[in-house]
Structure formats: C-alpha cells, structure tokens
C-alpha cells in the first residue's frame, strides 16, 4: 500500500512539476509568494521575525492556500482529462489513490511553507544577524511546523472531498474558495452564538493559557478537522459513484 501511495505521488509530482514549472503554469506566482513571505516580510519586521506570532499565522495560511490550489485538480482534473476511469480500472486500492493524492498536495503545501520559513530565517540572519545566529523561538518554530502541516492537511482533505464530486477543476476551485471564505465566517458567527458567559470563559481561558495554549488548541482543532474530513473523503470514495459521475 505504501509503495502504491508512492506510485501515485510519483505521477502527481511529475504532472505538477510540468504544469507549474512554466511561467504560465504558475511558477511566477509561486516565486512572488516565496519572495513576499521569505524576503519582504522578514526584512520589514526585522529580527523580531523569529519571535513574531505573525509567523504562526502565515505558517497556517500559506500551506492552506497553496495546497488548495493544487488539490482541486486531484480528481476533478483526472475526470476532466478522461484519465480517472482508467486509473480506477487499475489494481490500485481506493486508499492508495486517495492517500497518494492527499500526500502530494500536503507535501507541496507543507514543503513550500517550510522553504519559506527557512528562507525567511536566512534573510533575517543575513540582514539583521550581526554575527549572531537567530532562530525561531520554541513555540513559534515548532508551532509553525505543526500548523503548516495541519493547514496543508486541512486544505488537502477538504479539497479532495470537493474534487471527488466536482466535474471540472474550475468548479472544484470555486467550491473550495467559497468553503475557505465561509469557514471563518461560520466560526465567527458560531462564536457569537455562544452564551455570553461561555464566551467570557473561553476568552478568559485563552488569555490565561497564553501563546502556547492557543497554539495547542488550534493544533488540536486542526487534527480533529483533518481526520474528520479525511474519513469523510474515504467514505465518499466509491469507484461506482466516481464512474457514474
């Protein structure tokens, strides 16, 4: 099964590199994103970059957006290009196909974010290091690594779920964008719908737990969401339904 997941990833990466390798395919946009988050922002924020909570936010947001962009193509693209039927008629198991697609998207989004974090560190050290090695502070560094993995995982799981049913890549991208906009709105309104005392307790608990506590709560929430969405995607991955779609 692991080797089959690797086979699907090999093909996905091959296509991804061909598609994104050209300027028209998005290489330019990717370079801009990398430049902004690993050069421009660290230069602006200076040596505080390594201890700034903003890094945590970017570490969650960048992989989500970059993964979402890639994962929309996973099944909808195969369907649009008429390759899905043949893939489903192969000996690959449902899990191998699904995990192969998810792992490719996660490795892309997570890898890109880790690269940005690393380049950001290099930038800060080159410009503001003054002979001293600047490193991300404990919770910022570890939190960023975990959040970027889980952020990519969230986008990949949600994206695969949407892409499974979308008839075109464009439709999958649009649905995923709507979902990405709706999620914070729902969370915001959901929070406001809570009784006042509950909200007060929540704010109090968050304030009391500090940065580390908040990061752990977000990580725990993302783990639950990632696993839940992946489980739903697995349940909805049915060869017969995919053939008939």
């Amino acid at each position: 099964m692991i080797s089959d997941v690797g086979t699907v990833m090999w093909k996905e990466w091959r296509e991804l590199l061909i598609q994104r390798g050209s300027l028209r395919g998005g290489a330019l946009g990717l370079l801009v994103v990398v430049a902004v988050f690993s050069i421009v922002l660290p230069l602006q924020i200076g040596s505080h970059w390594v201890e700034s909570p903003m890094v945590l936010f970017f570490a969650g947001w960048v992989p989500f957006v970059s993964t979402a962009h890639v994962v929309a193509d996973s099944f909808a693209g195969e369907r649009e290009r008429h390759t899905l039927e043949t893939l489903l008629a192969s000996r690959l198991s449902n899990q191998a196909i699904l995990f192969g697609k998810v792992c490719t998207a996660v490795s892309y989004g997570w890898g890109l974010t880790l690269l940005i974090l690393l380049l950001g560190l290099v930038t800060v050290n080159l410009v503001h290091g003054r002979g001293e090695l600047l490193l991300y502070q404990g919770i910022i560094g570890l939190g960023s690594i975990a959040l970027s993995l889980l952020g990519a995982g969230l986008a990949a799981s949600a994206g695969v779920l949407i892409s499974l049913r979308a008839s075109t890549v464009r439709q999958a991208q649009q649905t995923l964008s709507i979902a990405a906009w709706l999620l914070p709105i729902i969370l915001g309104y959901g929070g406001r719908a809570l009784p006042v005392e509950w909200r007060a307790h929540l704010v109090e608990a968050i304030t009391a737990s500090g940065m580390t506590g908040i990061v752990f709560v977000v990580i725990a929430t993302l783990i639950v969401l990632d696993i839940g969405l992946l489980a739903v995607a697995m349940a909805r991955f049915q060869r017969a339904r995919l053939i008939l779609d």
Partner: protein
Amino acid sequence: MTEFAIRTENLTRSFGTVQAVDKLTVEVPSGIIFGFLGPNGAGKTTTIHLLLGLLEPTDGQAKVLGFDTQTQADEIRQRTGVLLEHSGLYERLSAEDNLEFYGRIWHLPPPTRKSRTKELLDHLCLWERRKETVWTWSRGMKQKLAVARALLHRPSLVFLDEPTAGLDPVAATSLRRDLAVLSSREGVTVFLTTHNLAEAEQLCHQVGVIREGKLVAVGCPNELWARNDAPRVEIAGHGFSEKLLVLLRDRPEVTATDVQDSRLLIDLRGDVSIAPLISLIVGSGASVEEIHRDEADLEEFFLTLMEAEN
C-alpha cells in the same frame, strides 16, 4: 487458466427505468478475441464496467478469470488490462512516463519495466518518440500507446472498448493489425467492444451481439452468418411476370420472390443449385441479362438482427 475467461449469468444493470444490461448470459473461452457488437448505447461499456467490478449489477452475477465481480473485483483488476472509451493517457507526460507509471502500478521491477516498454513501443513503432509529450501525438498513436499500456503487465485478459473509434482508416487498419499480432503473440484473451462489423469479422474468433442491453446472438462470425444465411439470387433482365413469381414461389427451394427496378430477387432455402430456376425463368419468356448470387456477411446479419428486434 480457467476454461472461460468470462462467465455471466443473467447479469443485469439498470439506471432508473433504463435497463442498460438485461439478463446477459455469456461465456467467453480463454485465449480468444471476443467481439462484443452493438450500436451506440447498447450496453457495451456498462458491461465492461460490470465485468471490471467498477459497477455493481442490479441482478445476476459474473465471474472474470474465475473471480466474482462483486466480491473479488480487486483480483480481477490485478489480472486485466484496459483500454476504455477514452485512452486514459496523461497527455502532459511523455509516452515513456505513462508506461512507467502503469509499470509501477503493476509492481513491475525497473529492468522489466524498461525492457517491456521497449518491446511494446518497438513493436508499435513508437520507441523513437517515447520522450515526446503525448498531447502532441495523433489519435492513432495515442490509441497504440494505450494498447501498450493495457498489455504492459502481461495480463490474462484485456478489455478494449472501441479501440479504433474515431481513427482514420489507415490508423484503424494499422491498429487492428497490431492488435491481432500482439494478442496472438501474448496469448491473451481479448474482450473487444465495437460497432465496426468489419473489425469484428477480421479480428474476432467469436462475437456476441447486444441490443438494448440484451444479447441477441453469439457465436463465431462464420457460424452466425451461416445461421442467418438466406442466400439470395439477384437476376437483372426483363419480362418477370406475376405468373412467373407465383411459379417460383411454388418451388421448394424458394422462400420469397420480389421484383425491384427490373431486378428479380429470389430468396433461397439453403445452398441449392439455381440452374432449374433459371431454366424456369427463361422458359416463361423472360430475358436474363445478369445473374448475381449474394454473399451474405456479418453486416447484413447485424442489420437483420437490429431490424428483427425493432
């Protein structure tokens, strides 16, 4: 190897009120090319989906290579190759990468992948162009590559869904020739759907004819032709009177007569001599300029079947 590569019993699949496949019972012996003939929408592709376990039947059952399509679909897909309605090739990748991907899927060791890719692409005259991205290729070349992909892992059974559809006559002939050679060389059972009767006649050891999901005939192309064989004599000339037609119909070897545009058409009962009939016609005062004995073929048989069902 099992005696029958495919065995179905009352296999049925409906979509709402439409019976795409209706009580299909058929046996396909191992090692042959079986042609599944039928017009568009007859249920050919749905049958392939059912046999590959990609769709669940509404009723009935099927065994492919001895495995049940509902409970052992993975085993079936492990041992079969496919070229479905679309070639299923990754057009952004090169031909070599397409075969590399499917070689990895079937766990072929790297040296085998390489040698098998070379062997198949060489045979199909595509080896020199293996590094090119597939989207630059003609449809005929893509279909050949898809055939190579289907045979890559030396499957026991290959499903080919209208492999020559949309190809120009030269490409279709070339692909048919390759299919005939490859299938006999590899000793593989081929289940080929087509609505091209010449293709079925040329390639297939056995054919099944499907219409509106129902199997309406099955057998060797020649047998089917013989079964349906109603030899017809067409005589061009003049003076074919109503009296002559009555005299001809009274003959035991004649089943029907008709006159169309100075041509007398006589349907015969089996492979009989027409000399006595010609003597009768000439004796009645009619003049005979040309005699043609029709060779019934699969196309005529197919059309008869389709009309009979209508």
